[in-house]
């Protein structure tokens, strides 16, 4: 190196580069930088827990303080990944307990976490501060009690949307009186009772608490007391927002909310009684984030609430908002960056609300900063999509879910190829896209041609032939995650683009036409991929090789085949070994 740095200077320089991307780039510059970087890396993100092993992680990065780990593929959210598939965190926790005594943070998504793991975490890491469990499962409130008891410096406990078995309501009492370090507490996923006195005391002795998301079990009446001890809150999630109408609750609530001068985000609102909504009006103008995805409020109450939120950047809401409500959003919320509209009745045969493509068009027109969209609806047109694309070339994440598969443009009865084509062509920074509606191979041609920055693509009930898959695999240069269900994609495109798979994190294909024989072939050619054939109907050997496999999960890995899978998962590599 023409400018030679002593190692500590290089380390100090590296300490100013914290993003995963930059750290990865640093490590690939040259041998010296690789060595220095790996020894001072503090934080690691592993997008697929089976892509690497705990041993490899520990060997390479001895100084990790924060680990972010993801397990099951995204389609697990739709119950497409059967029970017992894998993603156990315990091997990681066990290995780290031996090698990372200074570990401070563990953030998990879609992983199986046991009480044993939680206990081990609570006793192995003296400086443990942050535990985030998003969409996880496998643990009970006993595990939480261990965390509460033993983690002296706990700052963040976020249970996300995890499935927790409630064994006892008093786990909160396990936080010692000396614990005053809490900054963030999210227990919104818990189902059953909790002890209010424990909760109140905990909140009262946590002066740094910024985020508090309560569970449904916390009634409305309790909120004023809680908020009084925590008026410094920045994000607040209510419990059930209902009560027998008592006038003093209303005024107490309003006073309590007004007292929270730093409040920027609201969520919760289960079982809303609209009469109590005015209590939050005083804070509306300060709100940046509003999550009403569990709130069954309808217009005009919903309208009145949202029209006051002029600084809103993030809105999650049920389709009760309807087109009229979204037009109001377009007029009132000029800073809106993210909109998610969830279906109130996804399985009903008829639409129950007046939410159409017009609502989304209105928001795309009125909100210049809109870049993230998740929109469930029942009808769409190419014209609307083209308009949206033209309005919002700054779109980054666009997920459209037309509830009924293969729904065409309802005005022209044509496929929605042109509409999505417009999206990928106009929105040059698009990183995530979910398709729905009637789609032919042509939409994939558009995607392969234009979506050069696309990192994640979700496809269901679309396409006509392998040409579709071939377009995506050969054209989308930045593609990292591809998940497909119920599409007529078979062997050819997959085999022809086998090399592409090593440049991606993972590929999921379920109810497609990939044959068992092709899976075998692929595994022989690509030793650095794990080819998982998931078939609950029994071992695929018992059927002819030409038979399509039920579910296929392919991911690159340096850890080789895994051995913790259930009987219905077959890792093809094992057979490939001579």
């Amino acid at each position, binding site marked *: 190196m023409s400018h030679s740095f002593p190692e500590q200077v290089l380390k100090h320089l590296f300490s100013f580069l914290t993003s995963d991307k930059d750290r990865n780039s640093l490590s690939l510059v040259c041998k010296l930088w690789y060595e220095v970087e790996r020894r001072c890396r503090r934080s690691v993100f592993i997008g697929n827990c089976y892509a690497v092993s705990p041993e490899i992680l520990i060997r390479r990065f001895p100084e990790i303080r924060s680990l972010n780990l993801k397990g099951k593929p995204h389609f697990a959210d739709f*119950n497409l990944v059967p029970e017992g598939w894998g993603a156990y965190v315990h091997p990681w926790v066990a290995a780290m307990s031996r090698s990372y005594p200074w570990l401070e943070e563990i953030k998990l998504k879609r992983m199986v976490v046991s009480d044993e793991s939680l206990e081990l975490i609570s006793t192995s890491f003296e400086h443990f501060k942050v535990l985030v469990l998003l969409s996880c499962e496998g643990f009970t409130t006993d595990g939480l009690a261990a965390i509460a008891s033993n983690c002296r410096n706990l700052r963040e406990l976020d249970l996300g949307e995890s499935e927790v078995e409630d064994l006892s309501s008093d786990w909160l009492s396990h936080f010692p009186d000396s614990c005053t370090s809490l900054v963030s507490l999210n227990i919104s996923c818990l189902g059953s009772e909790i002890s209010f006195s424990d909760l109140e005391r905990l909140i009262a002795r946590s002066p740094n608490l910024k985020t508090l998301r309560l569970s449904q079990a916390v009634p409305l009446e309790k909120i004023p007391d809680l908020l009084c001890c925590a008026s410094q809150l920045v994000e607040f999630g209510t419990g059930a927002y209902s009560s027998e109408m008592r006038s003093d609750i209303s005024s107490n609530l309003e006073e309590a909310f007004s007292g929270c001068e730093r409040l920027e985000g609201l969520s919760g609102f289960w079982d809303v009684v609209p009469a109590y909504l005015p209590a939050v009006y005083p804070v509306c103008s300060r709100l940046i984030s509003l999550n009403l995805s569990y709130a069954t409020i309808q217009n005009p109450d919903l309208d009145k609430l949202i029209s006051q939120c002029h600084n809103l950047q993030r809105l999650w809401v049920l389709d009760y908002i309807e087109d009229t409500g979204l037009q109001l959003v377009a007029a009132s919320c000029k800073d809106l960056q993210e909109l998610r509209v969830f279906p109130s009745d996804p399985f009903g045969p008829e639409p129950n609300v007046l939410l159409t493509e017009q609502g989304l068009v209105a928001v795309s027109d009125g909100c210049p900063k809109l870049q993230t969209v998740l929109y469930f609806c029942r009808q769409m047109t190419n014209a609307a999509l083209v308009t949206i694309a033209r309005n919002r070339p700054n779109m980054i994440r666009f997920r459209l879910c037309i509830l009924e598969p293969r729904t065409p443009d309802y005005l022209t009865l044509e496929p929605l190829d042109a509409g999505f084509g417009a999206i990928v062509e106009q929105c040059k920074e698009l990183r995530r896209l979910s398709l729905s509606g009637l789609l032919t191979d042509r939409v994939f041609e558009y995607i392969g041609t234009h979506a050069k920055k696309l990192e994640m693509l979700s496809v269901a009930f679309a396409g006509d*032939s392998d040409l579709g898959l071939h377009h995506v695999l050969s054209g989308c240069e930045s593609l990292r995650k591809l998940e497909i269900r119920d599409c007529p994609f078979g062997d050819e495109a997959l085999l022809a683009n086998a090399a592409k798979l090593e440049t991606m994190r993972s590929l999921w294909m379920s109810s497609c036409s990939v044959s068992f024989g092709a899976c075998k072939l692929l595994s022989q050619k690509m030793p650095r991929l794990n080819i998982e054939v998931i078939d609950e109907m029994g071992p695929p050997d018992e059927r002819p090789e030409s038979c399509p496999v039920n579910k296929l999960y392919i991911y690159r890995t340096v850890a080789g085949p895994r051995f913790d899978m259930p009987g219905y998962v077959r890792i093809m590599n094992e057979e490939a070994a001579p």
Partner: protein
Amino acid sequence: MAVVKPEMKSYIWLQTADGSIQQVEEEVAMFCPMICREVLQTGMGSSKNYAISLPQRVNPAILGLILDYCRFHQVPGRSNKERKTFDEKFIRLDTKKLCELTSAADSLQLRPLVDLTSRALARMIEGKTPEEIRETFHLPDDLTEEEKLEPLRNMTDDPRIRLLNRLYARKRKELKEREKLKNVEVEEEQHVDERSVDDLLSFINGADEGKLETYLTSYIYCAELLYFLHEPDCPTSSCLNGDTGNVPSPSKPSELQDSAYVKFSPKLDFDDGDIDDELDPAMKEEIDREVEDFARRLNSVWPERMQEILSLGQERRPVSLSVNGNGSLKRYTGLDGR
């Protein structure tokens, strides 16, 4: 402001690794912790003969810069804004200087300057690829492929995909040429054409049949080439002869367009001029159907090809493909994660 007579000012004597010695105002030099310590602990620096030896990483030019920094910052009365403005101007240096400065400041334990220059360097590194970083800092590319563990280069570099793209592009060009010619012919013959529609159709048919075969051949050739580039030991002769005996002739008398890489402009208008497709919509519909036909035919041809390829040493059993085999029509249930 008090006037300080020059002879009353104190100086510290510093010597850099190249032997040159200079004197620096005391308050400026003492701003560097390392120098400060030397002066206080060893008493050195008070005269030319007892100049403090600075660490090797501090050369005279860099020392000059460091002293500029110290001279400014050691003045107590300055506001934060003034200091910030100075710093911003100060770090406008080339990479080499910044690196030397960081190194030198570190050896003199001048932490604030180390942080300042490091941050500037970090900003230069942010967002860059490894290659770009290497270039900026003149670093060797000495990691092996295995060490990098970056699986494969970008797909557009892949020779197989490039070959396929080139072939498609060539086909597309050929077909456009043909279309132009056809239009010209039609115009010329407008007034004197006495051939029946059937004659014309069969003329076009015949021309296309051959083209279709050649096109299919070249497509299959490509696809096989893709495959063969995985298997360099497979003999290429028998499979690449373009034996397209099983391919039926096209049923529609239309131009075959290699739709794969042609941009179809949708029925609705775009403002930007990216779409360069000049064919009329009616023809495009035909072409769509041709593409679908073709894809189906490809599906039916592949099994034979696969058998040939595979029988050359890999699998015993042929892989026959089920076309359009689709599983259950599960409804798109479930909500995306909140």
